[in-house]
């Protein structure tokens, strides 16, 4: 009896997708399963968008980054296993960050700039306004960080990647990522101390 079975892409119920592992999804995407791709897009679109915004891109550019990343995954999902044995999450963030970096380099300088009078503006503002202004100041200060420090901080603090996973995205060691994050935090604290009420 023949024991070779050609695996068909799994039919995925998109209402209950939280427990499907990424590597199963990528395998199905590589086989051309658009349902699996939809699940992957639901899982990662917002994350890629957030990475791009925090890297210093505007809303429309961040949406482009999310779209370009996922379409690249659609076209080259079959290359994941050949790509150095990284986890799917690391591989996806690496693609997203490469696309993000290309866009940041095209525009030459970060769009966000630190306004000079925000320290005074935070005085007496209500809580929501204060939070919004604090967010703007933090965003502007992050945009001034060196690129690798910025991405290390984004991946580890906001995206919750381990140092090892972030090392896979950045092409360095876990120790190297630890150093980058430490320096990024020191640099940010130094910059944010200038603004009353931010720290």
């Amino acid at each position, binding site marked *: 009896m023949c024991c070779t079975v050609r695996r068909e892409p799994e039919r995925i119920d998109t209402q209950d997708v939280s427990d499907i592992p990424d590597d199963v999804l990528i395998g199905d995407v590589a086989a051309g399963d658009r349902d699996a791709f939809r699940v992957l897009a639901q899982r990662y679109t917002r994350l890629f968008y957030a990475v791009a915004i925090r890297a210093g891109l505007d809303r429309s550019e961040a949406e482009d980054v*999310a779209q370009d990343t996922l379409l690249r995954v659609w076209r080259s999902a079959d290359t994941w296993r050949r790509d150095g044995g990284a986890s799917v999450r690391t591989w996806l963030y690496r693609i997203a960050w490469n696309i993000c970096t290309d866009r940041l380099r095209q525009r030459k300088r970060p769009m966000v700039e630190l306004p000079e009078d925000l320290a005074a503006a935070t005085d007496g503002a209500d809580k929501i306004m204060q*939070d919004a202004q604090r967010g703007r100041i933090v965003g502007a200060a992050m945009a001034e960080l060196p690129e690798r420090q910025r991405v290390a901080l984004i991946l580890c603090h*906001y995206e919750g990647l381990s140092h090892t996973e972030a090392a896979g995205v950045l092409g360095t060691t876990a120790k190297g990522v630890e150093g980058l994050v430490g320096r990024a935090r020191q640099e940010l604290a130094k910059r944010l101390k200038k603004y009353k009420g931010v720290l």
Partner: protein
Amino acid sequence: MDRQDNDMKLDRALDAFAVGEPSADLIERIVAKTAMPDDVPVAGFMMSRPLIAKAAMMMSILVVIVSVMLQMPVRDAVVSNAVPDMSVDRFVNDVLASADFPEQDDPVALLETVAQERQVDRFLDQVLDADDDPNSLF
């Protein structure tokens, strides 16, 4: 303790950096893009976009190679052998160089002289040939 406190303050500040939400239809737009056919018709054949890109790249490389070859000295050698320079000036200069004619400024007169000389040569050749022929009038 002070350092821990600073770290917590920095974490709170970092968390204040909200990014908002992408457009509500972004995921649908992305998924819709995967439905676009990868193959497009080119001169009656269905070709994939990557194949078209590769073909375009190969054509570009070919054009560059041909352009470079046409700039090489071999081009001049090939062309000059295949199509000799037939200009009147060149012809006159060649005649002047190969024959010991008195210098003449008028190229037409020079050509007439050459033609006359050749007629005389032909006539003398005929006479000399006829000398060996027993049926000749001479």
